[in-house]
């Protein structure tokens, strides 16, 4: 069953601009992860944020988590053409931590040089 849902489905920006993607989920969780997928390739883990964290940074990536709204956002600052990819949020299907990750449908980001 689908737990997370990304928004927007697709996003096109100019190089140098910031890109913001959102993820909403349904049930309480203990953590949320973001992944990146280049076309035709496997997914690569970007960042994991725990339910007791509100914000986390990794290089040009900034992730926020609002457990009261059951939502998360991924911000990519100063985007580059190489950031063009699909981005997925992933959560456990419940808060127990004993269930596998469930992925959303992703946001397709296009960064135009």
């Amino acid at each position: 069953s689908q737990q997370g849902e990304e928004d927007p489905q697709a996003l096109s920006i100019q190089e140098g601009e910031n890109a913001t993607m959102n993820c909403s989920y349904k049930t309480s969780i203990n953590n949320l992860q973001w992944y990146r997928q280049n076309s035709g390739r496997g997914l690569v883990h970007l960042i994991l944020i725990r339910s007791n964290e509100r914000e986390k940074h990794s290089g040009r990536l900034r992730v926020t988590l609002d457990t009261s709204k059951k939502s998360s956002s991924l911000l990519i600052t100063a985007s580059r053409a190489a950031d063009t990819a699909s981005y997925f949020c992933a959560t456990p299907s419940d808060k127990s931590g004993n269930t596998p990750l469930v992925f959303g449908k992703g946001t397709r980001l296009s960064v135009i040089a």
Partner: protein
Amino acid sequence: SQTIHQWPATLVQPVGSPLSLECTVEGTSNPNLYWYRQAAGRGLQLLFYSVGIGQISSEVPQNLSASRPQDRQFILSSKKLLLSDSGFYLCAWERTLNTEAFFGQGTRLTVV
């Protein structure tokens, strides 16, 4: 360091033929192993996961099966492929549930 191998990268199979996709992990022991399928332009659908040898959980009943004959080997199989089995199949592993997952490069399966 840990690595995951998934093969083949692409596969074209006729309807009704069998399927065997293999995934192996190196550099770790007792990983959780996963098979996902991704339709074109869509999200990932969890097919099977395994927390140990011989332990397989099926998420979606369908024309596929999975086996884990060794600790770091996960195999996806079908006795008779259907057109609807076409897709991009991804194998993944993690140390424990809900930690960082590491994905293989995927197998593009086309059933004709």
